[in-house]
């Protein structure tokens, strides 16, 4: 019988210390309130809130989602209440909890990214910024900020100028070489990278021969994308020395631990919340169980222990 000691779960992302590595993925957990009836928010490593823009955004016309094999497509279009309303109406609720709050931010120009970053850095209760350079569902100015290493680096620098908070850059998988973007944003001063955002996909209604989504294309999430996410995290951890946060199809503790073995310092749980509102805390408990079973006292003992050579 192993003794039931609780393994240490705290991890470090830049100068942000998280009580455990389980975060919520932006856009899948609202502003925290939506899930507070199911989950003790104080138990989470961090809450990454729904992406915030300078002005409120109405989002895309419906239908916005479609189930696919092992996942779902979404084209929400970054519907959000805007940074000011967030600070005024949503942040006070989050502040009452002992949990790291990471604000996911989105801009249509460098100036917008900067303004949103500045606003969030001047208030109490935001512990880090996650910069969305990778939303596949918003059309503006052609090239998205996250698919060109130079542009991604410039966004990073611009945001860093405005804030003392740790800056996490959320990377898109919809690029030829994700490591090039990761390296570029690290050089530009990013404190961490999180990956992957959704993979662009689509779904066809054969009866009507029309798209299932009004936006035609949407972002694929759920267990279907986990192998792609693992591959990209594996590639990126080898190229950068800043912390990597693993995201993509994490449904259970085993999934989360796979990312951490590859070298991810923390993980984000997204689509799983839709099916099991307690997915985050279930995953946390499962991770602890795994560590106990393997006689590890600290989650950091596991991170990056992937062995490519042994079968």
């Amino acid at each position: 019988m192993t003794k039931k000691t609780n393994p240490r779960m705290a991890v470090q992302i830049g100068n942000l210390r998280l009580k455990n590595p389980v975060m919520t993925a932006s856009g899948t957990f609202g502003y925290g309130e939506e899930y507070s009836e199911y989950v003790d928010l104080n138990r989470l490593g961090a809450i990454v809130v729904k992406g915030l823009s300078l002005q409120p955004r109405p989002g895309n016309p419906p239908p916005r989602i479609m189930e696919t094999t092992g996942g779902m497509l979404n084209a929400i279009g970054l519907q959000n209440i805007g940074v000011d309303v967030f600070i005024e109406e949503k942040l006070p609720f989050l502040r009452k909890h002992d949990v790291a709050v990471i604000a996911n931010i989105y801009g249509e120009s460098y100036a917008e990214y900067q303004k949103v970053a500045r606003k969030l850095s001047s208030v109490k209760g935001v512990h880090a910024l996650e910069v969305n350079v990778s939303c596949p569902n918003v059309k503006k100015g052609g090239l998205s900020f996250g698919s060109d290493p130079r542009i991604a680096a410039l966004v990073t620098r611009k945001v860093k100028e405005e804030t003392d908070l740790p800056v996490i850059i959320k990377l898109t998988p919809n690029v030829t070489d994700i490591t090039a973007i990761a390296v570029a944003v690290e050089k530009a001063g990013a404190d961490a990278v999180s990956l992957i955002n959704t993979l662009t996909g689509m779904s066809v209604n054969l009866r009507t021969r029309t798209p299932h989504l009004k936006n035609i294309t949407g972002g694929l999430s759920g267990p279907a994308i986990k192998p792609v996410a693992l591959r990209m995290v594996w590639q990126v951890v080898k190229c950068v020395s800043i912390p990597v946060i693993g995201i993509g199809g994490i449904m259970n503790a085993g999934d989360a631990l796979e990312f951490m073995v590859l070298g991810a310092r923390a993980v984000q749980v997204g689509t799983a919340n839709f099916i099991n509102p307690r997915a985050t805390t279930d995953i946390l408990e499962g991770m602890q169980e795994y560590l106990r079973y393997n006689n590890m006292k600290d989650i950091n003992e596991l991170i990056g222990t992937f062995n490519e050579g042994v079968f």
Partner: protein
Amino acid sequence: MAKDIYIGEVLKNEEVKPQFFLMKIALPEAFGKPLPGQFVMIRIAGLAEPFLGRPISIYSFSRKKSFSEIELLFRVVGRGTQILAGLISGSQVEVHGPLGGSYKIFPEKENIVFIAGGIGVAPLSMLAQYFCRDAGVARSSLNFYVGAKTAKEIVGLDKLTELCGNMHLCTDDGTSGQKAFVTGAFQKDMKKYDPAKTAVYACGPKGMTKTLAGILGEAGFNCQVSLEERMACGTGACMGCAVAVRDKSGQAVYRRVCSDGPVFDLDDLIWE
């Protein structure tokens, strides 16, 4: 009781009409009494597919000796409902709910009018039951208009005829009741109802609801309508189930069917 995910057991799953199923589910007692208009997200317990739960309105609720029982009346419209239709007694299901808001109740109104198209009968039947059993409204005040394409698509009459004093049945092809659209049948009777003393509740396909909006127009009726949309979370987080409505200032905004609805004022809906 709070909304939560409960493991339920299918007690019965019966095809009441071709492609229309009545599923009876036993749930733990903790599953609270739902309000009319609320829904559940249902999945097959422990299975990876179908991936997402399916939002289905609650057709009835009853408290048994040691468990709660709900009935879902649903129509097969896609892969998810097709698989639900195949469940046999004893199957385990994950039932997330009760979710969403409810209809606003005006028991003091002289006339309660329900307008249902097809499977839209389900939430309105639960509402009629609420008026009768909980709000103590007389049968004679309840006027139920049911419409469907054909007699084969008329469901839920067994319960409704018991609850409502005035049943109005119509089909597009005249195979049951009058040959008319349900909105047309109501329109013919409209002058019988004093808008100030009448509450109208509707649920049905988009075309029906839109036609109803045109008929009611400026007549001054309060009409609440419950909507349907594809959903992922059911709790307001994913923003997947957007519907365009006019807010208090008259501005067009997207609201969530799951948590801002599923019941909306017909007047607020925006038609493309």
